[in-house]
């Protein structure tokens, strides 16, 4: 599997049901599917968010997420993966990101899904700019995201 082919960056929304159905179709080895959907919240750092605009680094985005998928495949049994990340202007309740991992068993699917998401948060070149009553501002990176990553580096389960 070419990992970068499992990554889509798009303005359009996605349908998790359709994506999972496409993954399951014709693959009887799949016994477990874990997924994660990230959604735009209406409040960030105490301020109401009206809209959020995401930009990315075309080329590097696909390459870096592809590398993250390859790392996950090296650690767990991963039969298939789909990552979709939206860019452009989004509003609260909109979906931002989707990660789906298919495996033979749930443990591998859960762990690989969380691993991919934790790495994506700190390694994939996306940036959010949000509009609040105080004006437009670039969202700051969170140290809790770095902590989430360190867990995978120490805990080679």
């Amino acid at each position, binding site marked *: 599997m070419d990992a970068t082919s499992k990554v889509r960056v798009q303005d359009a929304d996605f349908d998790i049901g359709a994506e999972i159905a496409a993954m399951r179709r014709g693959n009887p080895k799949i016994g477990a599917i874990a997924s994660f959907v990230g959604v735009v919240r209406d409040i960030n750092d105490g301020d109401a968010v009206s809209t959020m605009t995401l930009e990315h*680094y075309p080329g590097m985005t696909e390459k870096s997420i592809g590398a993250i998928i390859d790392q996950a495949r090296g650690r767990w049994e991963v039969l298939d993966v789909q990552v979709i990340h939206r860019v452009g202007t989004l509003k609260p309740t909109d979906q931002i990101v989707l990660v789906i991992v298919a495996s033979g068993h749930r443990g591998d699917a859960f762990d690989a899904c969380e691993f991919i998401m934790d790495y994506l*948060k700190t390694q994939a070149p996306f940036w959010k700019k949000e509009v609040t009553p105080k004006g437009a501002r670039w969202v700051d990176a969170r140290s809790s995201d770095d902590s989430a990553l360190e867990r995978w580096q120490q805990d080679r389960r």
Partner: protein
Amino acid sequence: MSAASITLLYFARLRESLGSAREELVLPAGVNTLATLRNHLAARGGAWAEEMATGRKLRAAVNQTLVQGDAPLKAGDEVAFFPPVTGG
């Protein structure tokens, strides 16, 4: 792009504060690593000095791969500077 030049890309806050998304730069004498490039850009003053300052939270990628610390540069490289990422 001339043989001795690199492509520089700036994203997010840097793109806005520097007023530039992309430039071609002929590598000046002595500029052959990420650190020496950063110093060279900081010497432009103003927003450049501010964004490229040591201690500023800045990430860099060479040929679309994140670089920790310093890295050698060569003609033809694509070098990107950006703030810590905030996707997902």
